[in-house]
């Protein structure tokens, strides 16, 4: 990891969905993080934590109506949030690319794979005809798709799930982006295919020097892949740390709870699981206190008095008034 200037600097990002005749919903609330060149950053959270909305906001892919986006997203010297649409289109796909969860719904089902891959090259690199086709073939073989010439003529439904995700990654990498955002890229895939895709992403990041933002609910995926991890809950980052520090010693009760609730393949059998009580929908509004307080085993009185601040403690950021201590962490294992 280098100490150079951040490539992406998200400052105080907030996204509010407004509804006619209903209360507005703040899906992302004051999220800040940076991504340095070559760094792999993980955004971890359950459904409703705001991790996907964060990535859509960075990519400028949220609908214009009914959404209020605040804060800054600095990429190079540009603020992506205020950039005109056509400038954003130039950056998107060329400098920043995204891979989505479900490869079937992000590919056009009635257009052959080849056209969808070459489209990116034509739009951003002015490649045409045979040159574009050759480049597309090269891309597909780079992501490990056998017989790329034949695959280019096929439609998405003719490819398996893992193959489709490879094709999407090929499209995302077409212009050698400097930042790749992957939103649950392996969730829809089987474990052996997931392992292939994660290895592929690792290799590509190493080879091209691109930065990667990995959005996932799977702590195992993060453990093997990310340099820095941000844990999100109900729209805010609750804990950020290097992956080794985070897994060795989770301080936020939510992070600790997540780790204690997943069965581990290498744990002794019969080791009890400690689920987090309640569900991710039992949240307190951040304005009234800590959103996790209703489910938190470490809750103390001040937790529900007001929003706890995000504080830096020994190289990590933590949003908690009564964090886990070392002994408690050991007890949950």
């Amino acid at each position, binding site marked *: 990891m280098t100490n150079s200037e951040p490539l992406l600097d998200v400052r105080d990002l907030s996204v509010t969905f407004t509804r006619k005749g209903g209360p507005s919903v703040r899906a992302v609330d004051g999220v800040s993080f940076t991504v340095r060149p070559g760094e792999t950053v993980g955004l971890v959270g*359950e*459904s409703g934590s705001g991790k996907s909305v964060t990535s859509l906001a960075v990519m400028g892919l949220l609908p214009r109506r009914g959404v209020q986006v605040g804060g800054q997203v600095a990429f190079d010297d540009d603020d992506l949030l205020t950039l005109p649409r056509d400038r954003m289109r130039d950056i998107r796909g060329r400098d920043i690319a995204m891979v989505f969860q479900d490869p079937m719904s992000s590919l056009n089902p009635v257009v052959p794979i080849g056209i969808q891959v070459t489209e990116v090259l034509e739009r951003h690199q002015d490649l045409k005809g045979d040159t574009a086709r050759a480049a597309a073939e090269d891309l597909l073989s780079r992501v490990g798709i*056998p017989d790329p010439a034949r695959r280019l003529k096929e439609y998405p439904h003719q490819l*398996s*799930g*893992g*193959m489709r995700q490879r094709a999407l990654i090929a499209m995302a990498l077409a212009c050698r982006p400097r930042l790749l955002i992957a939103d649950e890229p392996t969730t829809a895939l*089987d*474990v*052996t*295919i*997931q*392992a*292939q895709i*994660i*290895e592929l992403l690792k290799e590509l990041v190493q080879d091209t020097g691109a930065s990667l933002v990995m959005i996932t*609910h*799977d*702590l*195992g*995926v*993060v*453990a*093997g892949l990310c340099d820095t991890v941000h844990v999100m809950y109900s729209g805010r980052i609750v804990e950020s740390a*290097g*992956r*080794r520090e985070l*897994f*060795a010693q989770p301080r936020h009760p939510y992070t600790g*709870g*997540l*780790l204690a*609730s*997943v*069965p*581990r*393949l*290498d*744990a*002794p*059998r*019969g*080791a*009890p*699981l*400690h*689920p*987090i*009580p309640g*569900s*991710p*929908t*039992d949240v307190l509004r951040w304005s009234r206190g800590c959103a996790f307080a209703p489910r938190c085993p470490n809750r103390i009185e001040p937790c529900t008095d007001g929003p706890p601040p995000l504080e830096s403690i020994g190289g990590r950021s933590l949003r908690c008034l009564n964090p886990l201590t070392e002994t408690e962490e050991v007890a949950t294992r």
Partner: protein
Amino acid sequence: MNDQTSAASAEKRASSDGLLSVRGLEVHFPIRSGIIIERQVGAVKAVDGVDLDIPRGATVGLVGESGCGKSTLGRAILRLVEPTAGTVTFDGTDLGALAGEELRRMRRQLQMVFQDPMASLDPRQNVQSVISEPLRAHGVGGDHRARVRELLDLVGLPASAANRYPHEFSGGQRQRIGIARAIALEPQLIVADEPVSALDVSIQAQVVNLLEELQDRLGLTYLVIAHDLAVVRHIADIVAVMYLGGLVEQAPSDDLYATPLHPYTKALMSAVPIPDPAVEDARQRILLQGDLPSPADPPPGCRFHTRCPFRQPTRCADERPALRTVAGHPATHRVACHWAEDIEAGRIQPAAEAVIEPDPAPDPAT
């Protein structure tokens, strides 16, 4: 839970009598072609010759990737799909010989929990009606309201839930409703098809714990079908690994995880990410090439030989291995691989391109 007692009880369960016995089960879905005159041009061999025993009171985990036929096997056991061949014997009764009313009555004993609790609950039916439906369908008398309250209490939901509708609940609570419905008739066997995979991670453990608690209280027998090896390892006494319509390995959970013998099991286990960077960085991985072959046209010989990193030039491609025991392992540990002994002894090494060694330069921070 005490480790020793749980191991002892697992052993006791495993040695006790069998509740369900599956022999040579096949489910082939015909592929038809033609417009006016339809004729069968092939078959998708979803389940192709499976033998499985489920001891009374035990939990058997069935793992495999999507398309391997594990759900079809679960459904064929309950006769929700008709097996093409083979027998399913439940508590001494051949389920295949039952029909009509007899089969319907037998279904009291065999219930199912589905993956997606939203899709398996009628959105316009309130919880009272959902949970009491099996009672009505099987003509169980008595006070249904009281019984539903009791069931809700068993699965950890408040009695007030009875008057509400599925959409008012979170995913984990909906799965509890699905479980309450499954245990309403006091069945002996529950087939749970991916019971936690649609749930948020912090909720999965709640449902896993609930299933274990109910087993202890009601003496249930489970067949848990899942793709998540970590969940299956946690919950199951016996694990069966399925690949492309057949079982490739079957063993008591601890044996399987301690010494996986089949190359597919090894690959599957090395693919499961572990939420611990220290372990992740130090692991050697076996990466499988390619995808699952089509079950309509399975490879000859060992089904796995097209992706197997330990493939040998002889036998693998032309002789289908049967489940067998391996010297040095308990008789309950069975594997379908011609070369299991040589692989275990290290005489056969995996193809180099399939092995990913751990990162050579670990972070100096630790």
